[in-house]
């Protein structure tokens, strides 16, 4: 009987585990999340985060500069929890499928993202309720908890 419980607890652990580690840093949540969905560090390798944080004054055409102190703190958090430093499922997949000679900065152009969304027409992303591919939480209702699997998807009209 005890064994069954142990097995159940173990299985629920698997079912409830997040695909990437959720952000547990208030500064990162505030600063990254003020303009867009706060992407978890486990979605890109550390070399990508270094590149992104170095170029914040021209962040995809927008000035997202931070003071030095905050920049360093956030970069450290993102490096420590980057995909290549994470054991979570999605982080490991992303690390495996990112070419080591590339430093991607757009999650939505990565192999893993493209393959996972290949059944969707691009027009779906442009719906008013979604706006763009990078708006994870529009469809992945638990994206802020690091959950991206298909059981937690609801595509709005």
């Amino acid at each position, binding site marked *: 009987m005890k064994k069954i419980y142990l097995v159940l607890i173990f299985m629920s652990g698997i079912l409830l585990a997040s695909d990437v580690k959720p952000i547990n840093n208030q500064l990162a949540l505030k600063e990254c999340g003020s*303009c867009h*969905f706060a992407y978890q560090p486990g979605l890109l390798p550390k070399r990508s985060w270094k590149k992104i944080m170095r170029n914040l004054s021209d962040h*995809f*055409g927008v*000035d*997202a*500069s931070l003071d030095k102190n905050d920049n360093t703190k956030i970069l450290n958090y993102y490096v420590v929890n980057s995909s290549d430093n994470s054991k979570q499922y999605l982080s490991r997949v992303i690390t495996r499928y990112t070419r080591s000679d590339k430093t991607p900065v757009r999650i939505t152009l990565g192999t893993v993202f493209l393959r996972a969304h290949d059944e969707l027409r691009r027009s779906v992303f442009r719906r008013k309720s979604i706006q*763009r591919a*990078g*708006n994870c939480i529009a469809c992945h209702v638990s994206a802020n908890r690091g959950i991206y699997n298909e059981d937690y998807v609801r595509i709005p009209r």
Partner: protein
Amino acid sequence: MKKSFLLLFAFTLTVNAKGFNPQMQQYINQLKSQAQKEKSGFTDFNAKRGQKIFTSVHIGKRGKNISCSSCHSINLQQTGKNIHTGKLIKPLSPFANTKRLSKVKDVKKWLRRNFNDVYKREGSAMEKGDVLYYINSAK
């Protein structure tokens, strides 16, 4: 007649402003002494001038027409929307959102960033003060 009406309007804007908290008032005072150095004859910031800075359209950092209102909307009591990401932006007016204009660090950060995005340069002390007066008075 028209002029006096405008003056009256400008006057109402100033009178209806919320007071700044002590840290913010200190920052405003810094901007004032800077503005005096930048422009002789400067007396005080002006919400009406700030409104023009806020709503006028310019070719921004991305090479496209943009104004502060593009994201913050014309009515500062209302929720805005980031035109690049679609993320909603809580109202800028302290009357609608008491957290606004309360932390100097955040205010400086956003003035730096958003002047660059819209004007492709940093704002002068006078421009910053004018915009802050406008936001602080926008009912």
